[in-house]
């Protein structure tokens, strides 16, 4: 799951696909993902893992790293 999320994020959000990111990279507070673009992550998670995460659970604070995302996805 982590690798799939990282691949998606590289492809979807990063202008330079060679930028190093890992499960603890701060994506939103680090300025790589604009919090308003989180919808495409939500769509991806629904399609790829069959998990519909409610929008209020997807915030700049709760979705800042892939590790946090996985934790939340696993609650559903």
């Amino acid at each position, binding site marked *: 799951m982590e690798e799939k999320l990282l691949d998606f994020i590289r492809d979807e*959000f990063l202008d330079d696909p060679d930028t190093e990111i890992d499960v603890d990279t701060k994506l939103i507070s680090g300025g790589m993902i604009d919090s*308003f*673009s989180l919808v495409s992550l939500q769509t991806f998670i629904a399609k790829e893992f069959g998990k519909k995460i409610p929008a209020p659970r997807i915030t700049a604070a709760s979705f800042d790293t892939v590790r946090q995302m996985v934790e939340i996805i696993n609650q559903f």
Partner: protein
Amino acid sequence: MAYSQKVKNSYLETLQTIKDNGLFKSERLICDVQGADIEVEFPVGSAHKQLINMCSNNYLGLSSHPEIVKAAHEALDYRGYGLSSVRFICGTQDIHKELEKRLSAFLGVDDTILFSSCFDANGAVFETLLDENDIMISDRLVHASIIDGMRLAKAEHDTYKHSDMAHLRKKLEQYQDRPRKIIITDGVFSMDGDIAKLDEIVALAEEFDAMVFVDDSHASGFIGKTGRGVHELCGVMDKIDIITTTFGKALGGASGGCVSGRQELIDLLRQRGRPYLFSNTLAPTITMATMKVLDILEASTERRDKLERNMKWWRTALTEAGFIIVKGDSPIVPVMFYDAKLAQAFSKDLYDEGVYAVGFFFPVVAQGQARIRTQLSAAHEMSHLEKALEVFVKIGKKYDILGKSKEELLQIKL
């Protein structure tokens, strides 16, 4: 007491956080009319300072133009100060319809509806024209007012990488089955000053049966051969479904905005656009002065031509002096420093030396993309630009950054 100490403290804490992050904004008092030279009081209470203004949206130099001021004076006598009504009750005068007609002709669209601001125009469009089955696909760098407008809509929303047409295509393929699709972009992007690839966007829209929305606030009046906007520049004058723009920048600079486009869309906005239904009509002074702006722009391209000359000169001069600028064809010219501290220090020195241009850092722009945004105006004479350049070079020498690459700039430690 409803406003308890606890509640009060929560706000004080938020304000303190803003200050701690270096993001607290203070207003500078302009003790003058808007123009290339302004007298500024900052901080409040200190001696007034004479500055060259390089940060206004007064692109065409019309904000204090005598003819515009005169038209506004005349409007007071002709149609009064205010109407105390929304448009559809008793707030529509003959001059409002006339301005709508004039704007439609100027922008080359079916019809136009006026709003109190472009922020309101962007707040009305998406909620009114789309429902939960539809999809909005926006460029990632669109203006905050568009983001707020999209938030009000029930339609689903997705984004594409800034000006990345391959990514936009991917998104259009992904949402192909939606009944209504709309591509949403700024004409000129206000942070980088780059221009949307509207011709390519229109081609994709035609291929996928998507509508096209453009916010031309930083383009109307001066981009394109006769200043009609980015759709003129890109040769797609009759292909844009919705254009929003403001009267608060090049077109006089007071306030007000509009949505212009397809007849049915404008008709529906008149029925259901909430900021149109529930907010007061545009003041007669602004309505008539904006018509005067259109008179001036339709009679001659002199002002936008002068702006273009100023822009070319400034872009070349900065580059030759050894600054790194974001390349482009708009009068928004960002000078890159990458490091926030450097940009901040430079901007302060500019101010001390009599040039007013503002620094932008994260989170307004991406991390490591700190810059000073300069904006050209037809109100600038060569003497202003030469003086401003002299100051830029002087401070550039002080920090030893002229001719340096991005990597070298990032190594400077202040």
